């Protein structure tokens, strides 16, 4: 399979669109006092760990693709 089948691409687009709509409608609300677990380092998307940076450096030099990696986010947002 060289590329994703069109129906998978369509389903992926639909899922992302639905997520955006639900999120922007404010349906998903986590209150500050509920964020204890989300604020933990294990729930961070970009932990800036030493091994992660080194690993990404290696993979960039061993694979033909790049991009789409983690960005900062998922933090406490308690205030």
């Amino acid at each position: 399979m060289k590329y994703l089948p069109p129906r998978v691409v369509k389903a992926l687009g639909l899922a992302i669109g639905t997520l955006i709509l639900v999120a922007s409608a404010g349906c998903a609300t986590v209150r500050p006092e509920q964020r204890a677990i989300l604020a933990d380092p294990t729930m961070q998307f970009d932990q800036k760990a030493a091994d992660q940076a080194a690993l990404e450096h290696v993979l960039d030099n061993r694979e033909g693709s790049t991009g789409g990696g983690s960005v900062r986010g998922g933090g406490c947002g308690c205030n």
Partner: protein
Amino acid sequence: MADQPGVRRWLAALLGLSVVVGAASAHAQAASLDLNSALFVEPSKRSGLTVWNPSAALAVTPTNWLTVQGGYEADIVSGASESVKGGRLSSVDIVSSATHFSDARHALTGGFTVTRASTHLSGSYTYGTEHDYRSNAFAVSAGTDFLQKNTQIELSYGRGFDSVCTTAYSATDAPSSRLALDNSQGCFTDDKKRASREISLNNFQVGWTQTWTPVFATQMVLSAALQHGFLGNPYRSVVIASAGDQALENHPENRARAAIGLRGKYYVRNLQTAFSASARFYRDTWDIFGQTYEVDAERYMLPWLRVLLRARYYTQTKALFWSDDYTGGEPATGPRGQYWSGDRELSPLSSYLVGARAVATREGRPGQRVFGLFLSFSGSVGFDLLKTNLRDFTLGGHAPDDTLALLWSLGVRGEF
């Protein structure tokens, strides 16, 4: 080795920066120092590779809205590689062409982050130098959160101006007559046998992070990159004729790349473990389509010790102009007649990765700092094993034996 006086200047500058920022930190609300070291080993009977990657980063927050960062990183590389790429039909002894080399890259970076309420703006500059390559990279990013901080958006843009050393061929010379470098002597000097080729880089990225429940968050990242200039390896020759004629690797001068990454994190209370799953899809104008699937699980084994286990699978198709062997009489106007490559990253491949990381953290208390100095201190160790399956790449018909890679990492971080 790299330009030693230049390296000394950079190290002196870093030391100076450390002293200045260190003095400022006496009045700062917070400062952090990261020291990391990674060792990459790719064993092989003929062409093994070892890379040592030490790095240091210092961040100081003199006021509650400004953080200033500085850092240094090096890649110290040694090993051997085949300077000529030929395929199954090659009449050239490729395997015996492996030559030993050593190299060092140094990169110095500085930047800032301004934080105001729910937004932040960052800027940075990185200068990298090695004896055959120089890079200047600027990056800016801006992020904000809204909907009661459940939604975070981050935009970033990076601009790179790089230079690579090659032999002194003219742009009007036929690609098939161009020669590869055999060493870096004379690079970035007045040497008439050397030339500097420019590479222009533009990187765009947008990230959307969403928290859905107290234990579930997702992230989507869209990336795009535009590259223009000399995009090959100046040291690599490719056998392009059945008689054994060789020429410098010849890649297209433009490449547009795009990727989408989707990931989710879910904390299972019963297991007290955070699980993560991600998928990434990549496409570029060289016709490479890549897919990455990754899962990991992280758990506190002790209140101060957390351990992460991960597994990753990657697969990609070949570049449009990729061939293991270019001596088969390809038409001159076709992708494989106009361009030729010996780069295994452009061949069809897949890889498996398994790894683990342990992080130990010790938090200080008011009036009782860790080791008498730090508000918090952490140390980490990691290990990853990467196995690559090259579906089409050979060295003169022989499968390479350097397809297993090992990566060890070690780091400490202190906040004071």
